[in-house]
């Protein structure tokens, strides 16, 4: 039995949003209650427990400061920070340290010491500022409500009972008696954070219906993954009493109900500003996603973005996805997507590379070689020029 490890792990990590985790709860969730936001910019740890948590997180933050995974582009950082500040207000936002992590995962976390991590996989999936604001408001609520500290104390207080029960009834059974209440506590805190996030959205002047949309989109993405892998969708996968987040179906339901009562500013999604600010990076984020070997989710995400307006890099991403997937008919489709990208805006040399490679595979050697030569003409310093030159026939 490793309960000490459990306590230490919970102490060492922040309360996190894990949007992918979603399953029906064992018992119906309580009606969301209003969340009081208590943190401000002058907040310092209040006691030994909290100081300990902050120290742990400061260690993590020191490592993060030099991590090659952190995206340091000033424009991107300034934009995400501006959305945070608009959402939670300038005074609360000022002391928050933002770290944008380059990873295809859909996640964001805020540690008890005010360190906020936003994953690039989240920025690929949120469709507008309002959705990003919902996640940032959710994370800030975890921080403001000091959820990590509460969970830590919950675990510690229950650990004494657990040790006693272990002696009497045995380790596994004891865990089954105590641990569900910890998970329940975690689910309740997630719901509180959803409530707080929506309140922040409303106050900041966003359309609060977008909060539920995030979960609807995620459920659609899970369906897409499942369909392409020919397995059952995991959107309603049930971890029962060991689920640490409310099920996504529940989140959609209560967030929709809350948005009806507190609509914020209907129509104010900030979609155009979001798309304009993400444009320089979305191509890279889509590339990260494509290389995760999840055809269904990748195609879902690319076509979802395409609904907001197809661009050369979106066509390119879809061409790359289909070229790599290469199931029956995919290569012909890939050639089409590259072609549409070239027609949309011929600024991306890799469109010719992709189409050239596909045409070679389709046995259209002359056209393929011509495309590869065009690629080399447009990207004379390409890192693969020697290889492509060979394939293009010298």
């Amino acid at each position: 039995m490793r309960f000490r490890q459990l306590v230490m792990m919970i102490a060492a990590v922040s309360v996190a949003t894990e949007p992918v985790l979603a399953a029906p709860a064992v018992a119906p969730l309580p009606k969301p209650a209003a969340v009081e936001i208590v943190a401000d910019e002058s907040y310092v740890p209040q006691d030994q427990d909290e100081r300990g948590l902050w120290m742990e997180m400061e260690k993590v933050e020191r490592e993060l400061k030099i991590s090659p995974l952190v995206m340091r582009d000033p424009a991107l950082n300034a934009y995400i920070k501006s959305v945070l500040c608009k959402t939670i207000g300038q005074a609360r936002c000022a002391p928050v340290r933002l770290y944008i992590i380059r990873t295809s995962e859909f996640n964001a976390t805020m540690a008890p010491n005010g360190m906020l991590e936003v994953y690039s996989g989240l920025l690929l999936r949120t469709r507008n500022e309002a959705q990003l604001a919902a996640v940032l408001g959710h994370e800030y609520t975890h921080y403001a409500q000091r959820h990590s500290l509460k969970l830590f104390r919950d675990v510690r207080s229950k650990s004494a009972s657990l040790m006693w029960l272990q002696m009497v009834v045995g380790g596994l059974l004891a865990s089954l008696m105590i641990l569900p209440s910890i998970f329940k506590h975690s689910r309740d805190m997630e719901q509180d954070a959803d409530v707080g996030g929506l309140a922040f959205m409303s106050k900041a002047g966003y359309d609060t219906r977008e909060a539920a949309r995030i979960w609807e989109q995620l459920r659609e993405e899970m369906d897409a993954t499942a369909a392409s892998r020919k397995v059952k969708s995991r959107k309603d996968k049930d971890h029962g009493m060991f689920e640490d987040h409310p099920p996504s179906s529940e989140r959609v339901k209560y967030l929709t109900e809350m948005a009806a009562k507190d609509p914020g500013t209907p129509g104010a999604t900030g979609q155009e500003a979001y798309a304009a600010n993400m444009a320089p990076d979305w191509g890279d984020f889509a590339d990260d996603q494509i290389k995760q070997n999840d055809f269904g989710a990748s195609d879902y995400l690319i076509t979802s973005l395409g609904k907001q307006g197809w661009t050369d890099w979106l066509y390119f991403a879809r061409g790359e996805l289909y070229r790599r997937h290469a199931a029956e008919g995919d290569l012909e489709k890939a050639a089409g997507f590259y072609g549409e990208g070239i027609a949309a805006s011929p600024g991306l040399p890799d469109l010719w590379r992709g189409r050239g490679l596909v045409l070679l595979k389709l046995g259209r050697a002359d056209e393929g070689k011509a495309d590869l030569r065009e690629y080399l003409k447009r990207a004379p310093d390409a890192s693969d020029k020697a290889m492509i030159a060979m394939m293009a026939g010298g």
Partner: protein
Amino acid sequence: MKGFVRIALAAALVALPATQAAAGWKLIAAKESVQVAKSKMAVTPNEAWNRGTHRASKKGETWTLDGPSISEVYFAAALLPGETFYKDTDKKNHPLPMMGKNLQLTDIPEFYESSQRIAYSTSVYEVTGIEPMKFLGQDGVKFSYTFALQGNPLQYKGLARATLIKGQLYLISYDAPALSFFDRDRAKAEAIMDSARL
């Protein structure tokens, strides 16, 4: 943090050792030809190397000088369509890509990149160069790459050579921290690649 309560639960419920059984290593003598990755591909190192006894896959094998996070040479041999570079460790959520049919040489760096991204759980990965090069006496591809890992401040560099022979894929790669180690052992790793015979 990914499902931290669930991770904690797993730790609490399962009385497993903290880490998997430590990988074993067997010394490979210098200047002796040795067959690798359960295949007919043979290499002759100029110095002694450590050969991992835990296989990353049925058709893969790892060598190192000072430990795999300092220098790692990976051999994959006779891979067939439908097979992966490594053993799947999370097939349900993060399945590794399988080798496709009708592969071109330019597909190999993409296949390896995607496999490494998933195996290392990283999106900070870039293929920095691809060029033609003979390997195992055949037309092949040589490529270089960089990557970084979560919880690790180091940048890594890598290079690989690969080819396709009768529809089967052969590859030898070398990864090491860009800081000091990559350059220190690069010539030794490339000598292994040069020595490869089928």
